């Protein structure tokens, strides 16, 4: 008896899952297909950089919008944050001022703080600048500072 019941239930489940032919009606109906492509982007930022002693301008790499699938009127905004001081590891009182410029070392431009990008391939070359006077005054030792690049997907 139980077997018969189980067999019956199984048959009903199979029937419910099988494809049922539906005859098309004569009237036209519209099917709206919607899809959503989410915005996507890849931003590459400069890697760690060791500045040679007494070098006034050092190429720092570039901020590049490598891949971009952006919505209209949207952009990717990159903001750089740093305190413009290289701190001596042994004595934080001793510092070396530096500045990050737009452009390559042989042709620097304005001081870099932020940039907006719309399409893939756009980039901003960066250069680290330390003046000769600041080099001359620097005490011996190891110095470093961390530069943070904040990336936003925002309105233009």
């Amino acid at each position, binding site marked *: 008896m139980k077997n018969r019941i189980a067999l019956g239930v199984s048959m009903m*489940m199979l029937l419910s899952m099988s494809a049922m032919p539906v005859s098309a009606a004569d009237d036209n109906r519209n099917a709206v297909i919607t899809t959503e492509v989410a915005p996507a982007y*890849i931003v590459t930022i400069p890697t*760690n950089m060791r*500045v040679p002693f007494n070098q006034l301008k050092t190429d720092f790499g570039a901020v590049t919008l490598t*891949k971009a699938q952006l919505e209209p009127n949207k952009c990717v905004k990159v903001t750089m944050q740093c305190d413009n001081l290289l701190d001596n590891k042994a004595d934080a009182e001793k510092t070396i001022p530096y500045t990050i410029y737009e452009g390559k070392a042989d042709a620097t431009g304005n001081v870099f703080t932020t940039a907006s990008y719309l399409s893939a391939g756009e980039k901003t070359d960066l250069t680290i600048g330390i003046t000769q006077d600041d080099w*001359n005054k620097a005490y011996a030792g190891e110095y470093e500072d*961390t*530069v943070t690049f904040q990336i936003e997907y925002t309105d233009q």
Partner: protein
Amino acid sequence: MRRLAVLGLCLCLFPYCALTAFAEDTTTSTTPQNDAVISVSVPSAHTLTVTAPDGVTVTLDGVSGNHFSIDRLSEPTLAVSVPDGQEIVKIVLNGEDITNRFVNGQYKLPPVYENLALEVETRSVEPTTSTTEPTTSSTTDSTTSSTTTSESSSTTSSDTTSSSKPDSSTSSTTTSSNGGTSNSNSQKTYPNNDSPNTGDAMAVGIGVPAFFLGVAFLMVMLKKRNKDEE
């Protein structure tokens, strides 16, 4: 048989089970690390390399040599000395002429922040026994003759020592007789360890008696002339 049928039905049902799928999140794909570290290494010492003719001695804080290590931002004292028969023409530090900066033969370097290259240029000077006195030529002549006399009567040969001050515009050559004391092995420290007044004092000391001798000679000549006229 029934069991096989149930098993077969279960196998048929298995593919219809719903499976959970995870969609890839591509909303924002950024680099995993948004930081970059800028680092710098400032050396603790620098070098001083000396290029100088043979015989020239360069000392740094009293230590002589041709290659020195200097602590960064320290201020050592530099001294240059030349052997007898030579004088300093020019002292160049990293391309800059610092000859005039030597005081009493020494120059205190400013805080050192880079490697340094020191070049010393010298020239030979002719040994001379004449002492030049810039005031009056007659005094100079008499001084020279007195000096010559003194040297000729000396038992040991006197050496001629020449030196020049860093300021080439005021450089002069002086002669001193040591009156029996030989100084052939001595080196004069640049620009002039011997006080230049030494030569002047000698010139004055010998010149004054010579002057009075000259006056006396003139008076005698005048008296003789008066007698002749009478």
